[in-house]
């Protein structure tokens, strides 16, 4: 049997260390990972690479995660890509805003990697 095509994750995170850690975790779980370090790069790569799921940080340079989320979710072509927000912004107001912008899930930092993986699995299963 040929290799099933690996699922593609777009990982948007401006902190290099964090990016490396999450990427390692995702790749170990059999996903292919494309990184992006700012809002604009995130949008661009979402459009060109067509990932199966996006992991999105909020505090990003050039364009914040909420905007990126909204722009993708309001675009017919990309609204079906599940978006998991992973952010140090833990206020209720932030979580609600995430939901308003169309995020499919909101995970606060620091997080347990099992939680992230579980959420990703659930969203991909749909």
């Amino acid at each position, binding site marked *: 049997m040929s290799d099933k095509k690996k699922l593609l994750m777009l990982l948007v995170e401006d902190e290099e260390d*964090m990016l490396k*850690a999450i990427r390692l*975790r995702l790749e170990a779980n059999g996903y292919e990972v494309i990184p992006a370090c700012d809002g604009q790069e995130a949008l661009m790569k979402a459009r060109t690479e067509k990932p199966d799921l996006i992991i999105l940080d909020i*505090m990003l340079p050039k364009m914040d995660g909420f905007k990126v989320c909204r722009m993708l979710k309001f675009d017919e072509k990309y609204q079906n890509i599940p978006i998991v927000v992973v952010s*140090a912004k833990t206020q209720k107001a932030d979580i609600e805003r995430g939901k308003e912008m169309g995020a499919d899930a909101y995970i606060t*930092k*620091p*997080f*347990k*990697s099992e939680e992230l993986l579980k959420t990703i699995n659930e969203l991909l299963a749909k």
Partner: protein
Amino acid sequence: MADQDFDQQALIADIKEKFYWAIMVRYALVVLGLVLVVFGSFLGSLQNINLLLVLFVLVYNFVAHLIYVAKVKFSLWGIIVLRSVFQILDVLAITFLIYITGWLESPYWFLYLVMIIISGFGMYSYSSISVFVIAFFSAVFYMGLLGCAYLRIIPMYGPNFTLTSQQLLISIYNKAIFTTVSFFLFATTIYYFSKLLNQNREQLAEKNKNLLAALEELKDTDRLKDEFVSNASHELRTPLSVIRENIALIKDGLLGQTTSEQRDLLQTTQSNIDRLANILNSLLDISKIESRSLELRRQPVNISEIAHRAVEFLLPKAYSKNLEVETHFGEKIMILADADQILRVFINLLTNAIKYSNENGHIMVGIEDLGEKGVECFVSDTGIGISQNDLPKIFERFVRFDKQKENKGAGLGLSISRGIIEMHGGKMWAVSKLGEGSRFIFRLPKGAENE
């Protein structure tokens, strides 16, 4: 500078108002005068000169009224001068009145003092000069009147004098000195009096300005603090996340095999990271609670249901120590509160009850509906209790009383819980006996009308 302009505008408006008030009073006096003249004409002959006085006042008052209605833009000095001009005309009218009521023997010279008082009050620090201006004109007009009457430039009204010319002169002289001196003495008194009043007013205004400035500064500082707290929150959480993730990656074998010893160590590291994260969250919360900037989302909630959830959540922990948990509350008690925060309080109290209970203990959670007074909730245990010495301190920050037990908390739980209850307008307290157990009680208002 803008402040000064504003003050000036307020001043000008105030003086304008007084100007208007004076106009209305004059109209009233004119009407009164007319009534008296008409009345007098029924009794005796119509005194033309009385009518003349009334008309004089009417005319210049009318001019004043026209100027007022014309809505001319006045500068501060403009309106002060205007007001003074008409006050001087009032002094003239008073002089006229004194003339026709017996000049030398007229009882109405006190009206000059009334004018001095009126001019002295209500023009704030500018009143100083006007008192003396009015006093001056009062003296000048009065003495002028006496002089003119004596020199028969104008016909003398009033009682026929049986005094000799010389006696009359002396009488006039005395009167002139007496009134002039009184005017100026009076003016000086009013001047100092109003200056005293003004000083107080100005001091108060100054203090007010300082207070407002200090308040603005405090607000700024507070805002800076909030910004710092929320930034610190992010700044601390980010490296914490990286550390946690990296440890997890190693421990889960993603970077190569690990020995069981290594895994144990990493496990301890992870627990400590969790602990750090908890302390961080608690610190941020307590900071928000203390600055009252924690956002409460009050909604009608069933507090029984919240307590029930807390119990359910902690039941496994309780059972692991073989603790019995008993609940005492009705199905549905509605209050206005932030459900998440109240849940935290219950969880905190229950966690403490479990933590500080020995095996085979008994924990009770109760809610009592006190109607108008609100609801009273308690969590009691049969644990190690708190000594009377320590009891007053338990709600303080970073206070923990048993150093032996393994503890993940930072000692902020009770502090936060009490803060939450107090932000809801309630009260929290505890009773305890060392060795027997403790009971933590809090009362919450129902919240419908009170705020």
